[in-house]
């Protein structure tokens, strides 16, 4: 007799939202960290703690580079707007 055990299951999504603009650096950092570091609920406690510590470090690195990328992108946009003769708009973007 054959017996096949198993199941078809669905995972849980994470919803992240913002008001009056896009997601913040913190929200994006959390999303990236969630994708990079995952630890099983059933993992031994020392492994869970190690993963948690690693996760914190990853989050800091990701957060720094997201902030940097956004700043550099704004600098490029500001430069392009100035070149195109829109200094007021360039200043508005620079002050974000």
């Amino acid at each position, binding site marked *: 007799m054959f017996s096949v055990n198993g199941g078809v299951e669905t*995972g849980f999504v994470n*919803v*992240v*939202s*913002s*008001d*009056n603009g896009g997601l913040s650096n913190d929200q994006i950092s959390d999303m990236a960290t*969630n994708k990079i570091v995952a630890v099983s609920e059933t993992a031994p406690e020392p492994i869970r703690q190690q993963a948690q510590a690693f996760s914190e470090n990853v989050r800091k690195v990701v957060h720094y580079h997201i902030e940097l990328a956004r700043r550099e992108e704004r600098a490029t946009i500001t430069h392009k707007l100035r070149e195109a003769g829109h200094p007021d708009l360039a200043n508005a973007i620079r002050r974000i």
Partner: protein
Amino acid sequence: MAITQAMCTSFKTQLLTGTHNFATNGNAFKLALYAIGSGGKSNTTATLGATTTVLVTTGEVASSGTYVTGGLALTKVAPTASGTTAITDFGDRSFTTASITARGALIYNNTQSNKAVAVLDFGSNKTSTSGTFTIQFPTFDASNAIIRIA
């Protein structure tokens, strides 16, 4: 009147009849957002769960920003095995400049007459006001992936 997280029963049957193809060059899958209470189109309330068989319009969230009623396409990740569990995934989906209140979502197969795949329950109403509404899919592994066959 509720949205209950579930893999649709009809989808399980259709897996055995080869209806759905999650390969990157396979079927087109979409995700539609739903509300309970006042978030839906014309204030309709969604009822979704394991018995859902196809895309439904009751309680669907109205178009706003880059979100369009009927849902938007998902980017597939090729199915693979993790240990003894087969898994597949989708790329995260964001709707920008959107004012949305949603309590859940339905993943459905647009290629196969909008047949339902899975109902996602957000746990509570999630809201964006003139902002970004992002759905992040879980870690692509045997314990968490969005679709798992153990």
